[in-house]
């Protein structure tokens, strides 16, 4: 650590003022009046705005789940979740703004809230948008034949994929600097985002700005994980106030604000899986409720999009029915978290497979092997209409099982059980497939040879900790022979990079990296021709030399430096030695893998200690193994955290109970075992690098593996399911209720009939497809 980072919070231009928000303490209520007089008169205050003062129309900050649920940047007439901003105070110092914000008096008339997504869709629920007539943000039901017909056994599971907070190291942060900068921009915005170009477009649209005169810069960004996509309400407000004041205005979210601003997951899954007498799957019926939170947060659409898309997972399933409802609740608008809808599919599939293994009396690994899609079946189109590019699921599973020493682990588990030990061993397996660079990915990449003989990469992805500068420089160094330390890397600034999709959905290397690769290739071809002409050689004999020049193969004396080549290109009048490419990938890629988790469970206290985690993740061809391992490690930690520790909890009135890191259970390194991460490599045919995404795989495989391990540790007692996070109390209760029921956990802890609203969802021809169902993050 050098302390040389430049995060948004490190900027303090001359005259910078600070914004602080007055937030709703109610989950649902009418705003009767907002009294701002005392705050306006407080020391240092430059202005106080309510919805009326701001005059910005309600908007959608990212992809749209329901048009009718646009959000006013400051609450207008109603508040719809605890933490919703109602007013903003801008003052000379942050302390002055905090003090003045306490002087804003808001008169609320409480309304009954709808907090639980299933309750929100029940008859009589309090409505968030009265005009909609229900809290259904979107939904669709399947109409085909019953996929369970003919099954000799049906295994049923209801599980909650709990809401979790994104918790990046740096929360939201924005600094808006209005005024001509001399370079043709009227407004420069520094913002902690994954997608600077998308942010600029959204901001211009929402505030009616001239996009050409708006510059957006993402400086160092302290993590995103899906939480920093699009324009948040607070972003819009800060920019509007800075324009109104003609002064730079900054807002850096507090940790408690962040815990209420970035949340993901939040599904309830009803899964029924049919099997024949050979334990082969005959069909699956899934009914899924996605919690969209307030204002139909785009995360609610993940149940309609990626979760549905990946609902068949790695298995041969002859028939699938998938019904889905996204519910409006009076909670933080739902967004994305690492994996964004795909982990939810893997979680319910892998949990139901383990439940089935238990009920059918088949080993969990064996059950999976019997049902995996064959390695020679690719490209493979599922019942969901998803086409998997390439894969070899059995190979990943075999490797994970071998590395874990599965048989020995089972032997030790049996021995402990035989000895009646109170520290039980649990072994959890998960096989998954996920989708990266969905949504028709396209990306800008450029390579320029500089006068000094170095190269500059410009790319439309926006790395924020993933190591893009390293990976992309490797691609260029590989092709051109220019050493890595002579390669500059430019990203995340709309003035320097003309367009870009940013970083999300594990898209960057496979799309941005391939764009850079193609640009480097173009540059190479030009350089080769220039060198051939200058050296009077055949272009076919020109190579990049070991000492970083371009010359005739086998004749060290006949070579040119890159600096000389840049000069030749300029001299030839053909412009700089550079290339710009927009790389498009024809379709999404489908990384996959298998994880084995080993945990110990204290049967007296319910405490779970993860002992080992074996991850075999296949992200196609690997460019930089260390960076891949880094992504696996971070992903595993976050996925394990969902299985064991993290949950965003709201009480029945919609008060968030986990709004500090003391209460929200984010683990630290102290809770983690050492990870055993490795790979298989199954290249994708869809891009020249053969690469798929790795950013989210670790998260997707680890959650169900760890979850299954906990239940597996208790299976000899008759426990069949424990909801996540598997807290000590939940584990203890599962043991207790199972003992009380005579050694088989009551059915009510595993399944209940899905609510009636599923039967009334629109049919596919009647249901529109919300834009956000195609979210690619």
């Amino acid at each position: 650590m050098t302390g040389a980072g430049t995060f948004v919070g490190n900027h303090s231009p001359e005259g910078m003022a600070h914004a602080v928000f007055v937030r709703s303490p109610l989950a649902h209520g009418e705003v009767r009046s907002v009294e701002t007089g005392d705050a306006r008169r407080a020391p240092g205050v430059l202005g106080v705005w309510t919805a009326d003062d701001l005059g910005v129309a309600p908007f959608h900050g990212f992809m749209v789940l329901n048009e009718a649920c646009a959000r006013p940047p400051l609450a207008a007439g109603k508040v719809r979740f605890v933490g919703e901003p109602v007013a903003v105070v801008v003052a000379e110092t942050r302390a002055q703004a905090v003090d003045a914000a306490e002087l804003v008096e808001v008169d609320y008339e409480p309304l009954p809230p709808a907090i639980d997504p299933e309750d929100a869709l029940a008859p009589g629920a309090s409505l968030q948008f009265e005009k909609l007539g229900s809290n259904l943000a979107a939904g669709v039901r399947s109409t085909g034949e019953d996929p369970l017909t003919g099954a000799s056994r049906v295994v049923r599971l209801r599980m909650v994929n709990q809401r979790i907070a994104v918790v990046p190291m740096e929360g939201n942060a924005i600094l808006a600097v209005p005024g001509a900068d001399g370079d043709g921009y009227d407004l420069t915005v520094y913002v902690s985002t994954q997608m600077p170009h998308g942010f600029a477009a959204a901001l211009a649209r929402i505030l009616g700005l001239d996009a050409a005169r708006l510059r957006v810069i993402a400086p160092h960004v302290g993590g995103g994980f899906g939480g920093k996509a699009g324009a948040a309400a607070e972003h819009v407000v800060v920019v509007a106030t800075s324009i109104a004041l003609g002064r730079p205005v900054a807002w850096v979210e507090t940790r408690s604000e962040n815990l209420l601003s970035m949340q993901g997951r939040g599904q309830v899954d009803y899964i029924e899986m049919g099997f024949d007498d050979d334990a082969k799957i005959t069909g699956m019926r899934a009914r899924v409720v996605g919690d969209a939170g307030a204002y139909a947060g785009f995360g609610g659409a993940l149940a309609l999009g990626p979760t549905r898309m990946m609902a068949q997972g790695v298995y041969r399933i002859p028939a699938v029915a998938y019904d889905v409802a996204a519910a409006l609740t009076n909670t933080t608008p739902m967004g994305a978290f690492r994996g964004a809808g795909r982990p939810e599919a893997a979680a319910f599939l892998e949990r139901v497979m383990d439940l089935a293994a238990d009920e059918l009396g088949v080993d969990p690994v064996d059950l999976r092997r019997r049902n995996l899609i064959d390695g020679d079946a690719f490209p493979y189109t599922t019942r969901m209409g998803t086409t998997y590019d390439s894969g070899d699921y059995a190979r990943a599973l075999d490797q994970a099982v071998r590395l874990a020493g599965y048989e020995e682990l089972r032997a030790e588990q049996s021995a402990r059980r035989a000895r009646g030990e109170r520290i039980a061993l649990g072994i959890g397996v998960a096989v998954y497939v996920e989708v990266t660079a969905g949504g028709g990915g396209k990306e800008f990449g450029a390579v320029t040879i500089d006068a000094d003989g170095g190269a500059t990469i410009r790319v439309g992805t926006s790395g924020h900790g993933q190591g893009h500068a390293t990976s992309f420089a490797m691609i260029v160094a590989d092709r051109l022979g220019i050493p890595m330390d002579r390669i500059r890397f430019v990203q995340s600034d709309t003035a320097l990079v003309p367009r870009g999709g940013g970083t999300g959905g594990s898209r960057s290397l496979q799309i941005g990296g391939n764009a850079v690769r193609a640009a480097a290739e173009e540059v190479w071809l030009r350089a080769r021709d220039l060198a051939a002409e200058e050296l009077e050689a055949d272009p076919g004999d020109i190579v990049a030399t070991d000492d970083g020049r371009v010359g005739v193969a086998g004749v060290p004396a006949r070579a040119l430096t890159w600096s000389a080549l840049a000069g030749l290109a300029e001299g030839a009048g053909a412009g700089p030695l550079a290339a710009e490419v927009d790389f498009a990938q024809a379709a999404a890629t489908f990384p996959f893998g298998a994880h084995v988790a080993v945990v110990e469970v204290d049967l007296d206290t319910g405490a779970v200690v993860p002992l080992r985690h074996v991850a075999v993740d296949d992200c196609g061809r690997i460019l930089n193994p260390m960076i891949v391992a880094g992504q696996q490690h971070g992903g595993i930690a976050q996925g394990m955290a969902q299985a064991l520790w993290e949950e965003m909890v709201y009480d029945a009135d919609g008060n968030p109970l986990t709004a500090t890191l003391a209460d929200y259970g984010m683990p630290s390194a102290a809770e983690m075992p050492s990870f055993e991460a490795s790979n298989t490599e199954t290249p994708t045919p869809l891009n020249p690098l053969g690469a798929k995404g790795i950013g989210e795989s670790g998260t997707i495989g680890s959650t169900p593996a760890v979850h299954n391990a906990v239940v597996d540790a208790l299976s000899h007692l008759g426990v069949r399911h424990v909801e996540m996070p598997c807290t000590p109390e939940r584990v203890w209760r599962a043991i207790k209720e199972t003992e009380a029921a005579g050694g088989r956990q009551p059915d009510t802890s595993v399944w209940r009939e899905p609510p009636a609203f599923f039967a009334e969802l629109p049919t596919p021809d009647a249901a529109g497809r919300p834009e956000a169902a195609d979210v690619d993050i």
Partner: protein
Amino acid sequence: MIPAAFEYQRPSSLDEAVRLLADSGDDAKLLAGGHSLLPLMKLRLAAPSMLIDIGRLRDLSYISDAGDTVTIGALTRHHEVETSALLKAQVPLLAHATSQVGDPQVRHRGTIGGSIAHGDPASDLPAVCLALRATFTVVGPNGSRQIPADDFFRGFLETALSADEILTEISVPKVPDAGWSFQKFNRRAQDWAIVGVAAVHNGSTGVGLVNMASVPVRAAAVEDAIAAGSSAAEAATHASDGLDPPADLNASQEYRRHLAEVLVRRALQEAGAP
């Protein structure tokens, strides 16, 4: 994250601190390590008008051998308690339990006096002091007095300290040969205890409980059962007798009662009770 405005004073002696506190009225607060008080102030759950910073009164930072007891100045940081050779030899339970408080940052700032004076039922050290039958010295405008740990914790975040008194010393009996155990049950390494148990077992038995009531408490029924000849397992069934444990995100009342029994049993067994 920004506290409300307050006045700040930094006395250079205990006398001056006592005088300042007496003169400043009810709204003044002593500031020691600040690791309980400042978080409350930053969340604006506490807004004292004046802070009297006693954190640099070096005279109140010591660990001394006083014959049958070890005396510890109230301003002694957790880190010093945790690493003290004297305490490790004579009162190992206290040194060990202190090493389980928070994380290294917390232990380099937080003080033993602040921990006791704050009277938080979720704190580790009050339960240890109860188990060890410690005695506290407090100083006010009318001189000093001694308060046994048993009489100190009165209500939720309420102690026998009056508003004009300062806790100056913690005195703990030496128990070099006693069996002891500290059972801290939490979900993450640096968390507060969901339930904690401090136990010493020599001639007599002391058992203190963390987070099992609105105040730090002694498990009197457990101690009595051991005195009456019960086994550890039998005695542990009395762990929450007469207690009304809190219910929160981490544990319901029922689960806390269960944990208390398990942890008391383990503590007694580790401390050598039959």
